[in-house]
């Protein structure tokens, strides 16, 4: 039902049109309208301009640079444009990671058109759960669910962490949980730390120091003896961030050239020992100050100072 347009509305529309015309120019947007009075004291170049629906709807054209997409969407933060939603939804599956990320960011800020039944969010959940979809589609769906920042995505991501057949997708699901600041519906992050695939374990280690409530330090400690040197390195770094005192023995082992051939791993272990600050590591740190690798010696020098050796 359409109401009779009042004079007030006509005035509003007229003003809006003028504003739209002004705002359509990237150089001279009217950035003061509708904002708190204090912003009138600031110059336009300091204030956020608002993208137009036409700019957003044009983002699927073939001659749009990624940086243009990012700019238009960022400046379209508060633009309620239902017709733009299908356009931006397609960008969730763009090959450029930042394009996917900012598209999900824009979509999650919509009041209408995204989170209703059958809409973008639900479609994304379905894509992740649909094993017949290509790996890349499921992976991108996991990325998007993380960036949507809605906890509704935790169950789907948790399930994907455990059961998706693709390690890339499982890793993306872990990253999605990290973005949601969730260790999983039933602590799936711990399971990911023991995944058979190195990339998933690495994703889980990255998440372990960035999810506020993660506390399963033992699962991280177990990885200091991982078969992958990169996993051992990341585990050592995570234990240093966590200042996990129970990991000192394992880190001492990692710090010696006899037990750890990779200098980057030894360096990470020594740094972690310095962070933890347990005097039991003193001998190991002093020994590392004679390591054959210069950067290991540098780490040992720093750790030695931290333990006041």
């Amino acid at each position, binding site marked *: 039902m359409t109401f009779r347009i009042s004079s007030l509305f006509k005035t509003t529309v007229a003003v809006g049109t003028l504003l739209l015309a002004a705002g359509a120019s990237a150089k001279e947007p009217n950035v003061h309208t509708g904002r708190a009075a204090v912003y009138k004291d600031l*110059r336009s*170049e300091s204030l956020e301009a608002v993208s137009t629906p036409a700019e957003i709807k044009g983002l699927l054209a073939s001659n749009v640079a990624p*940086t243009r997409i990012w700019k238009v969407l960022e400046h379209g933060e508060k633009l309620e444009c239902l017709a733009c939603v299908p356009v931006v939804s397609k960008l969730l599956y763009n090959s450029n990671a930042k394009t996917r990320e900012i598209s999900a960011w824009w979509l999650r800020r919509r009041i209408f058109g995204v989170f209703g039944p059958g809409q973008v969010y639900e479609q994304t959940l379905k894509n992740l759960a649909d094993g017949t979809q290509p790996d890349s589609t499921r992976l991108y769906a996991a990325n998007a669910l993380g960036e949507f920042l809605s906890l509704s995505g935790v169950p789907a991501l948790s399930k994907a962490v455990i059961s998706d057949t693709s390690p890339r997708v499982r890793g993306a699901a872990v990253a999605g949980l990290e973005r949601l600041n969730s260790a999983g519906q039933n602590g799936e992050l711990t399971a990911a730390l023991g995944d058979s695939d190195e990339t998933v374990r690495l994703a889980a280690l990255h998440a372990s120091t960035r999810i506020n409530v993660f506390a399963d330090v033992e699962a991280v400690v177990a990885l200091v003896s991982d078969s992958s040197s990169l996993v051992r390195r990341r585990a050592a770094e995570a234990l240093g*961030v966590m200042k996990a005192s129970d990991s000192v023995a394992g880190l001492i082992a990692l710090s010696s050239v006899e037990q750890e051939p990779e200098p980057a791993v030894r360096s990470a272990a020594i740094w972690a020992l310095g962070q933890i600050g347990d005097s039991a590591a003193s001998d190991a740190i002093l020994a590392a100050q004679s390591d054959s690798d210069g950067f290991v010696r540098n780490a040992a020098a720093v750790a030695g100072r931290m333990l006041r050796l």
Partner: protein
Amino acid sequence: MARSVTSHLSLGTCALLGALGALSGCSGADAPSDEGVGKIVYAVRQHTVIADGQVESIDVAGGMGQVMDYGRYVPGGRLELLDLRTGKAENIIEDQPEADVSSVDLSFDATKVLFTMKKDSADAYHVYWAGLTRGADGKFPITQLTFGPHDDQQAIWAAGDRIVFTTNQAYTDMGTRADEYNHARVVTQLASITLTGGDADRKLCSQNLSHTVTLFSMADGRVGFSRWEHLENVNDVKLMAMNPDCTQMIGVSGQFGKPGNSLVQFTESSTPYVFYGIVTNRENTIQAGSLVKLDARWVKDGATQDKLDMEKGSEEAYTMLTPYVPTGEEASPVGRYRSPSVLPDGRLLVTWGDGSVNEQNELSLTPPDYGVYIYNPTTRANELVVNHAHSWELYAKPVVARETPQIITSRQNVTDASVPALFGSIDVRQTSLYSRHGNTVGGAQFADGTPLDIALRGAVKVRIIEGFSSEAATGATMFGLTMAEGAALIGEAKVESDGSWLANVPPYIPMHLQAIDEFELTIRNETTWIQGMPGEDRVCGGCHEDRTQPSLPGGQAITNARGRGPEEFMVPVLERVEYPWAGANDLANPNQIQTLLTAKCVSCHNETTNGNGPQEFYTVASMNEVTGESSEYEIPRLDLSDRPITVTYDRETHAWPASYVSIFYPAALEMEMGMGAEVTGTVPPKWGVPSDARHSVLIEKLNITSSLNPASYAWQLGTPFSAPVAGDVRSDHAAVAGLTREEVRMLIRAIDMGGQYYARQNTGFKPFNNDPVAGTQY
């Protein structure tokens, strides 16, 4: 094939070097003159990876879409030391073939180079230093100073062998916090180490909500930097400075006008407070822009002083050195510049790339060809120094000694987040915002155009607001119909009769201040984040006082606030006052807005009734051009219930309560947020303007009495409303509706703090398990 310096010569080495003039002292002698520059050092960053003679990849703007972006990594970078006499370039990091270098700085004695490097794809960026002379083993001695699973970048030397840099290491109760507008990229904060201690002396500075980039040392001993300022509607990059111990973070320039959105990559000249840098658009220029000179010195009675004046406007302070280079994002007809450094003779060593240097480079998959040049501000000519093919030459520094800045003794050595920072003012009424910038206030008791210094005489409190980004509203997709960040009320400090106020506040976190009048309304909303270290004294002169003048207490030795001691606002994060609109985790949360509205307002303002008449609606409709389907939603004029707004679109309903949408949508529409939609019906007045309760018609309608005089109202009774509102003239509608003064204050605060729907207290926020600053262990 790499182009070398010599390949550009048509007249031989010395001719090129002759173009460098006094730089090399090349006059046939072997050694440079004492005042000459014999060498430069710079980073080589790859953009095109070639394998087996084939182009494997080209990265044009990856990791450089915005001026504050970091994390770009393409293997094959170098740190080159170029001898200008011989043309020979040596790679200091020759043993790191997969490395990338993201910043370069030279020690004051010109014997060491400081740089940040990522050794390979599995590494993170960390701080290193290297000697400029090969050791006995024939290699440049390199020492790594920082370690760990985070990126440390933008390192510079500060006096006393301190090193200051940016890091995305996460700390404090908030844990990992990404920038709201750079999304998953964790915000870069400032940190420092020492040359001898490295990470053992690592110190983390207070946090801002958005990135800090491109640091520079200042002659007065402070560290200058560019900081992305994102506070509600503000979105730009300004210049700031702080002491090397992380205290006294303060603005340097850009708050009161600048020639473009972003000021980045600045460096101080040999004249204190005269700087050179880049002004550009925040995005789409591949971190390049127009060269600018900033003279931030105070001018008193026509005479230039040796003092910083942070309030100089664009025309007063800035001189465009490359006027044909756009300061926006449009294609440049003459290329764009990056990272200037000052040569002893006053010319600038710059990076310059010809061509558009914007998204057109992306579209054509042709990276700008950044090379090192000398820019002569007098002739406006670029003189080539070095430009390799398939790579960018950046962050060039002349290897020449410079004066060591003053050493500012560290006065802040505590890292205990339970030790408060001290915030306050000597006299909140002292301000330069009117006298220098013409800022005025209007609305409620203030006639339009009331000078701010007059209005501030009415300040009775200062509201201290913490800001936080989406990670703190766990599970919320956004904060609501507002551009404001998350907000929590730290406290409202009393302003004493002499204008002073004082409060102990949580350290490390970003906050902003609002001067409050007797009607609980904001007189002035600070549009910059401020923060303090544990134990730091951040007492200002006034409410943005003129910092070229002393700030004196009114006729006594100490202020009244200092005499009575600071108010205590050290509240744990989960206990801070927030105003969740609805859905509070604690059902008994007394600050939930919807609870108040349901109790006091809904009986008259609901789906069917609005005051004395039927509810009215306006409709926002939109056509999906792809499917041909139209969708529309009805928004009530003023329905204060928690009824979900119904959207007609494939049976969709949405959980947003009518109250929130009713109140804030009119302002959102006016801000062009409803562009492209067809609006039919009468759009109501702006019931709620985020961060501006004074101009929010809902508050005007309710009205509020003075805390000093219960007979006095913010809006004089019987006078016309500022917008078409039922009743035509102002009244005490709060009393009619049964709202207490405190309840009206609740609504005022909710609006003044940003009009958010979500906070921490109606989402899944849990504090970070570990505190890497204080060293709490699992």
